[in-house]
């Protein structure tokens, strides 16, 4: 449920994004000076450690506050690891580990990657597609230790980072833990799926936010651009396509919002979270392909240029859906779970909220 506090935190975030993360300004920038300035403002406002309780060094904001920040971050296609630092802070807090200052990320982010705790208390494993790893000082890791799950804080410098980039050009690195000694490690209060569920929900919110922006941009352009002596937004074909984009955006917004609300209301391991987070990531992911295609079709050639900011949104949409489980991953998992419960439990499961 939306509360007043959401509004204040989200508005602070939105104001900082508007001032320091304007997509056109960033797109035109010749260096990355804007990045430090933006991060400092976010950090000073307590947004980067929003999900860390005050006694662990954070701002102690609610889950809903953080989710609202991430929706806004999506609306700006924010190209800094705010979501990842929030997630890392949240993960560390689950184990009572104090959050360090500075930029963080989490690992693993791919459902099949595993990091394991060795007998000598070091970590081993490979985690692919870790967002912004090379830019971070610390990584919060969810690792398995036999049948148990542990949360560990690791210095990025103690890992091997093979640099990569996702479609949008943001860092997406392979992190190799080779008997890496964590700064801290503690038993987790949940199993290994928790980070994937939380990450999926976070990315769904970002996807929905980015879709909101491309919808708004596309409508504005259609109301301005003239072809065949009419605004293109007056053509029924364009109207029908934009209505579809609105539908996909609405679906992503509703699904992501529902998952976030479920986690905020319940806990990360509440009974409804699996359905909600999986469905959100699937549905928001499905919305991206059609949504991005429609927006590009409305903008035509100009939207295909580097100068135009459209690609900042569409390419992040396509990239973000790969993190914390693709649609195919979650769909096979969700479908398998529904089948295992059986037909008689299907409707009751859907109608639980």
């Amino acid at each position: 449920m939306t509360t007043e506090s959401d509004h204040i935190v989200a508005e602070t975030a939105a104001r900082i994004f508007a001032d320091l993360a304007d997509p056109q300004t960033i797109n035109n920038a010749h260096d990355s000076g804007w990045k430090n300035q933006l991060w400092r403002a976010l950090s000073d406002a307590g947004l980067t450690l929003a999900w860390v309780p005050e006694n662990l060094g954070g701002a102690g904001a609610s889950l809903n506050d953080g989710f609202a920040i991430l929706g806004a971050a999506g609306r700006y296609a924010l190209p800094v690891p705010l979501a990842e630092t929030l997630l890392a802070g949240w993960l560390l807090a689950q184990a009572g580990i104090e959050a360090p200052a500075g930029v963080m990320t989490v690992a693993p982010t791919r459902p099949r990657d595993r990091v394991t705790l060795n007998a000598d208390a070091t970590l081993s494993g490979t985690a692919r597609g870790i967002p912004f790893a090379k830019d971070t000082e610390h990584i919060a890791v969810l690792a398995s230790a036999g049948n148990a799950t542990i949360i560990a804080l690791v210095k990025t410098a103690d890992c091997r980072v093979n640099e990569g980039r996702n479609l949008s050009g943001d860092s997406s690195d392979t992190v190799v833990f080779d008997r890496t000694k964590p700064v801290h490690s503690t038993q987790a209060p949940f199993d290994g799926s928790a980070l994937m569920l939380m990450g999926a929900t976070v990315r769904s919110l970002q996807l929905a936010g980015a879709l909101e922006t491309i919808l708004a941009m596309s409508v504005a352009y259609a109301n301005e651009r003239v072809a065949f002596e009419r605004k293109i937004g007056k053509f029924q074909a364009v109207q029908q396509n934009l209505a579809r984009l609105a539908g996909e955006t609405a679906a992503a917004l509703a699904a992501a919002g529902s998952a976030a609300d479920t986690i905020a209301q319940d806990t990360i391991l509440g009974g409804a979270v699996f359905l909600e987070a999986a469905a959100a990531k699937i549905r928001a992911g499905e919305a991206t392909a059609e949504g991005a295609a429609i927006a590009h079709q409305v903008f035509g050639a100009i939207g295909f240029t580097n100068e135009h900011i459209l690609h900042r949104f569409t390419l992040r949409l396509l990239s973000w859906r790969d993190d914390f489980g693709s649609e195919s991953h979650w769909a096979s998992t969700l479908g398998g779970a529904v089948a295992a419960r059986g037909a008689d439990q299907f409707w009751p499961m859907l109608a639980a909220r």
Partner: protein
Amino acid sequence: MTNQLQFDQIRLPPECQRLREDVRAFIADEVAAGTFVPDRPSHGDTHNRAFSQRVGAKGWIGMTWPKKYGGHERSFLERHVVTEEFRVVNAPVRLHFVADRQSGPILLKYAPEHVKQDILPRICRGELCFVIGMSEPNSGSDLFAAKTKATKVDGGWTINGSKIWTSNAHIADYMLGLFRTSPATKENRRHGLTQFLVDMKTPGITVNPIIQMTGQHDFNEVVFDDAFIPDDHVLGEIDGAWKQATSELAYERSGPERFLETYYVLAELVRALGPDPDLRSAEGLGRLVAQLHTLRRMSVSVAGMLQAGKEPVVESSIVKDLGTIWEQKLPERVRDLSAFLEPDASNRVTLDEQLGFAFKIAPKLTIQGGTTEILRGIIARGLGLR
């Protein structure tokens, strides 16, 4: 975009979930008594007067209406729960559903007090079937092209012409109809239509059946030959129905009946796939579950926004657009996902029979109550494009 899309997050309150248990118990009793077969929409009648009266007796018709008209002053969320529980088992609600969803709210808003006193309590008791008289042979999606004429006479109006595609007219007690009382004007082509309450037993009304491609009888042509409607059955402003028609359609747009109409094939697929489906089936099923869950959460959200007094016109049109396309394509998806099932599997026959029925009704899902093209036009207007 001035108006951002909004889906309030609604958590169904405990009283809703208690109500849900009551509805399920009621359904279980009805099924046990043989009233209908769940999941088998092709079996038996879709309407059942006695059943509707029992639903009325439970207080599940006119749930959100004032108590003084027989209503129950419960929330749109509670109504949502009842609607979805009935829809998902294909309960035979056809007799009272239109009155509950559309006609009652219009009467509440526009009918004279004594008409409300007379009719609304009977709707709530499940005694009255209503139909909508909008389309005519030469006006389908374009409601304002209606030509069927109401001519002023002493004490009322006489109606001449015909309405078409009127679902349930052959079992209906009343129609809410749109009739031409004046010509359209140059400035406003929507001018000149008036909404009337029509007693279907009025002399001069003939109902001719139109059989559907499913073999079912649902549609009708209703012919008016000097049918007399008394003055107190005029609803709202004479010549001004266009001001009322938009809000009327809003009730139609995003209830759970707008995406659950072919739900049974999905439930049967889950049964057919068994507890351990292969990757192909699991993935396909999982996507359908995610899509359905999302539609339902959107629909719950719209119910919550209605309850909060908001007017989510664009959001509700989106739910209907996405929902009807989804339920229309669902049989295709289920056919694909069941393609490799053993032909001897015990529920293969049931599934095939359900699929057959679903395929046959599928075309109407994106036509009835506002076509896809019309809905997207409404959405585009809401986005500021028209």
